[in-house]
């Protein structure tokens, strides 16, 4: 009777699908049509022949809603597998971000570089007035870095969304 638990939780769900026209629209349409949240979504082909794609979705809801989401995904015809990484145990979730900071003040530029170093962000573009940092990590880490850049002249953020995988020998 887990369905009665009213607490909201976040879930990272990986879906293996046939890489066919419209499959992403089917998944997104399911979420919008039934009023589920999408906090992050990534998709790309993952096998040699390009026939299968992996969709990683970060969503949130009560346990009952998350179970519904998985059941609804699983009944889509081109879906091969639906895995709730959050339920499988420990998993890794990473995303990449490009972060542009515009400032001419030398103190701010130095501070931005110091923080980038601490967060292991790489400078991949620099001008006299700007930096672009590239950074990979968990969503929380990226959020934290972006917040730190805000007073230093944060101008633009581009993020990939989450790619996720179970730790250890578990495969979906």
């Amino acid at each position: 009777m887990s369905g009665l638990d009213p607490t909201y939780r976040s879930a990272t769900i990986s879906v293996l699908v046939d890489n066919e026209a419209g499959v992403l629209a089917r998944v997104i349409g399911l979420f919008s049509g039934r009023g589920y949240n999408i906090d992050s979504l990534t998709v790309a082909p993952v096998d040699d022949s390009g026939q299968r794609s992996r969709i990683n979705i970060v969503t949130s809801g009560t346990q009952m809603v998350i179970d519904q989401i998985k059941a609804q995904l699983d009944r889509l015809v081109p879906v091969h597998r639906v895995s709730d990484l959050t339920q499988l145990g420990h998993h890794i979730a990473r995303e990449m971000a490009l972060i542009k900071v515009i400032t001419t003040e030398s103190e701010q530029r130095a501070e931005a570089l110091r923080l980038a170093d601490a967060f292991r962000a790489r400078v991949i573009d620099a001008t006299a007035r700007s930096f672009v940092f590239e950074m990979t990590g968990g969503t929380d880490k990226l959020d934290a870095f972006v917040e730190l850049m805000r007073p230093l002249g944060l101008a633009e953020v581009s993020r990939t969304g989450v790619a996720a995988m179970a730790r250890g020998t578990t495969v979906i």
Partner: protein
Amino acid sequence: MSTIAPAAPTQAHPAPPATQSGAEVLLRALKDQGVEVIFGYPGGAVLPIYDAIFQQNAIRHILVRHEQAAVHAAEGYARSTGKVGCVLVTSGPGATNAVTGLVDALMDSIPIVCLTGQVATHLIGNDAFQEADTTGITRPATKHNYLVKRGEDLARVVHEAFYVARTGRPGPVVVDLPKDILIGKAPYVSAATAPHRSYRPRVEPDAGQIARAVALLKSARRPVIYSGGGVINAGDAASSALRRLARMTGFPVTSTLMGLGAYPSNDPQFLGMLGMHGTYEANLAMHGCDVMLNVGARFDDRVTGKIALFSPDSRKIHIDIDPSSINKNVPVEVPVVADAARALEALIAAWETDAAKPDRAGLAEWWRQIDVWRGKDSLRYRQPRDRGAVIKPQYAIQRLYEITRELGRDTYISTEVGQHQMWAAQFFRFDQPNRWMTSGGLGTMGYGLPAAMGVQIAHPDALVIDIAGEASILMNIQEMSTLAQYRLPVKVFILNNQYMGMVRQWQELLHGGRYSESYSEALPDFVKLAESFHAEGMRATSVDQLDHVIRAMLTSPKAVIADICVDQKENCFPMIPSGAAHNQMLLGPEHEAGVAGVSDDGLALV
């Protein structure tokens, strides 16, 4: 977590030579899928298919008068035979007109394959004449859909469409066919014998869950079996297993609107339909039960009423072939994902071998309680019998049922949507599955006449009656012309109260009697309308004329419209007002004050 085995290897043999046109390959695939009838309407994009249809005799084409009706006709055909219904429409407006029928079939789990024409592949996306993004529009309207972009995919996709439509929880599938694919050469391949690469719904129940279910059922003191449309979809085996299970357990049985006929209505263990307009005994049994066995129903809001107050003290078992139906609205203790027939048969076998004794004393006490509720006679109505008295709609259906029984013909009933639909569900009694065609989930006015047409095509010698309202029937009245063309003797039995009756009822009960736009102004003369469509028209305006009109209608060899002028003010009772619980039913006009307690939350419900 699904545990799906690796996909079957793709076909290794070389594609056979393409000697036939795409349209010919399409028809061959349909024939191999057992299609005997297509309901359709031609147009530019599907001309190659119509040309191929012209040159063969295996598949019969029924020309409808509107594409929506083609889908409803295929639904009637499918629902009354258990086969997949097949539809053929053209691109653009042909496809968009079909959408209502597709959603109807999706909501009620009816297997349909709808072939839609499409502009040539090189024109897709160019806003070409009669182009629509059919796969985009129908994605949420279908179980699955396909756009065929290469001739070599055509036969495989058509076979797969039929597999998807009928497998697991059935539903509508669209195959969008660009014109150049239909004209160009395409290879033929037979239906795959290997398992589908990804879509393989579970049909066998888990033995552990069955054992848990039986333990729960044996412990029950106040059990109820809540049966739904899934039992009809699972075929005769499921209906017969349901009857056996009820007989061996002695449990009371109630049914959803979609499930009527799976269990015989005249059986003493049958409590009648449950839900918003269900019987007092069915709803109170659901409210008061301690163990509920849901077979093939989905805890729809028309059934549950206010979800927080729904059957508060019961432990619930839910058999459904669709895992997404389980724990969607109501959390259940024992879910069983399986085909209804297999699950019921497993329950019967496990009940027999399980050593525990059912609580017979508890059950006898429960039946005494149910008999008290039955004593309320919640479907009662009063029909004045004096000459010239106005006909009560309930009485009209009661007499239609009784006279039909006298005739003893195999009878199929379809309905439109509204008060007449609920009265038909309450007063027409079914003892076999697949005899009752109604739009349950979507509630589509205009469903009944085309559905009846599809039933009559499938069962040429049966008696097929569309119980209709005067407002609903006008939504697809053009199909009278189809009846004439194919000499289909469908009987249209209109309960004419000159109002959109259910709208009027809600306005009376919930909106202060302000009958905003619910009066049917300027109605046609239905007798003349029938005659203009080469059918017979007849009318009853008072109770003394009713039997004569019903007999004349049922014995006519032609299509008939019977205009039964009924009491304009009659309301459909019992009724659970929106937002109320099962034990807060209104039994009749004397309880109408009860709706004063409907909250704003309740008012917001449909």
